[in-house]
């Protein structure tokens, strides 16, 4: 296999690669083992720091049903609203009427440029809304702006013939956008959209800061309840849950990307363009 940086290695290069591979592997393993020994010395792996996870089911009930449940509820509601709102804003942003296009562009720039936490605070403190509304609202404002931009990029990446053909058979500008361009853009940008849902799901953890009882906040409540001796084990389990959910979604996005989109003209868009968007 020849990649940009190097050709298919010959016997000498293969040996060199093998040696360095072992050296790097030993170094990494040594660091991990040292860390594990230090953690062990502090009794991190003792059963009295982990018993809350197998003695009774209450801990899991709190973490999964209440914590993860609240996280997924906020993420689900926010994602559903953001996708619809994002499509509407994208259509408005591409309108040929300047007094529709300009405000849409301004709103996108405004909400994309602000931290989600600040948007949540706006709704929680400024509008005096419930904390669930504030979290979902903040996520919706930010993510519908981002999703609108993703969809717009998708529409712009379609071959120009799609739009010309639609106009030629007599569809209006609006019909062309809604019936021809947008559906293809959604299919084409599906991987980016799923990645954005991962970002949204991660951002529900801002609820920790503003007092929405999602997964991370539930973990801290568990720590307060069981004592700080359990903080490490609770953290590990929480991290595994977050990473498990997000990683599955990310893999799904990668799968969609690989599979491509047979029903959209022109295949998937170049990947580099999307890099740095879903932070």
């Amino acid at each position: 296999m020849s990649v940009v940086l190097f050709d298919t290695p010959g016997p000498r290069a293969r040996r060199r690669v093998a040696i360095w591979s072992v050296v790097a592997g030993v170094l990494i393993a040594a660091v991990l083992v040292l860390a594990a020994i230090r953690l062990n010395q502090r009794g991190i792996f003792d059963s009295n720091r982990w018993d809350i996870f197998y003695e009774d089911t209450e801990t899991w009930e709190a973490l999964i049903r209440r914590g993860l449940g609240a996280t997924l509820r906020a993420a689900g509601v926010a994602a559903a609203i953001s996708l619809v709102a994002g499509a509407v804003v994208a259509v408005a942003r591409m309108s040929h009427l300047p007094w529709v296009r300009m405000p849409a562009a301004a709103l996108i720039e405004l909400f994309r440029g602000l931290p989600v936490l600040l948007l949540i605070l706006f709704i929680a403190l400024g509008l005096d809304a419930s904390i669930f509304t504030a979290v979902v609202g903040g996520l919706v404002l930010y993510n519908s702006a981002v999703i609108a931009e993703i969809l717009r990029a998708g529409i712009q990446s379609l071959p120009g013939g799609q739009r010309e053909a639609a106009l030629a058979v007599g569809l209006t500008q609006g019909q062309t956008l809604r019936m021809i361009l947008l559906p293809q853009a959604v299919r084409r940008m599906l991987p980016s959209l799923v990645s954005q849902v991962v970002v949204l799901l991660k951002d529900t953890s801002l609820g920790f800061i503003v007092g929405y009882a999602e997964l991370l906040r539930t973990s801290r409540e568990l720590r307060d309840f069981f004592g700080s001796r359990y903080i490490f084990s609770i953290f590990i389990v929480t991290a595994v849950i977050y990473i498990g959910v997000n990683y599955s979604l990310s893999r799904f996005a990668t799968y969609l990307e690989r599979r491509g989109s047979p029903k959209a003209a022109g295949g998937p868009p170049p990947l580099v363009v999307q890099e740095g968007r879903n932070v």
Partner: protein
Amino acid sequence: MDSVIDNLDLYWDGFQTTLQLTLVSAAFALVLGTFLGACRVSPIPTLRGFGTVYVELLRNTPLTLVFFFFVFVAPQVDLKFPFFTSALVALSLYTAAFVCEAVRSGVNSVGVGQAEAARAIGLTFTQSMAQIVLPQAFRTVVPPLINIFIALTKNSSIAAGFFTTELVAVSIRLTNRFPSDTIVILLGIAACYLAITVPAGILATRLERKVAFAR
């Protein structure tokens, strides 16, 4: 309105803290991310594996959880930092994963033929990297990097929840003191963020267009 004007010094402190958080962690993330990116495109399988695991772990972890680790968990195992340092470390480690991905896709975006031609005319590895691959990779990497640093600016707001007095923390403190001026205070903070993110966003879009035509 007075609550904003009378407390401009607080705003200024918060703005400076946000800027410090952003710039210092951007520098660290750039160094670490480039190293990780080099790992991920290297011929050595263990280093590639290390890079992949790091990126997948950090990319799928909420930044709040990373903060949580350095502020609440790490002190339990004798890793105690001041809150500002914890914020820097959390932001740098998290952002490095995204820098790594940008660097990797930048290097991979250079045509295979470019490097093959460089080797064919007898350039050494260093020469072909310095004169052929990296200059081309750099162009594709810059716009996504700017986007990552814009996101970093916004992400630094999470430090507010972990005892660092940056812009959002200032706004929470001020709204507690002047509840009737909540909207005005928050708008002031929003303007501070937009002053950083909007110009940077415009710059990124411009550069992106330039790069697109240069190919």
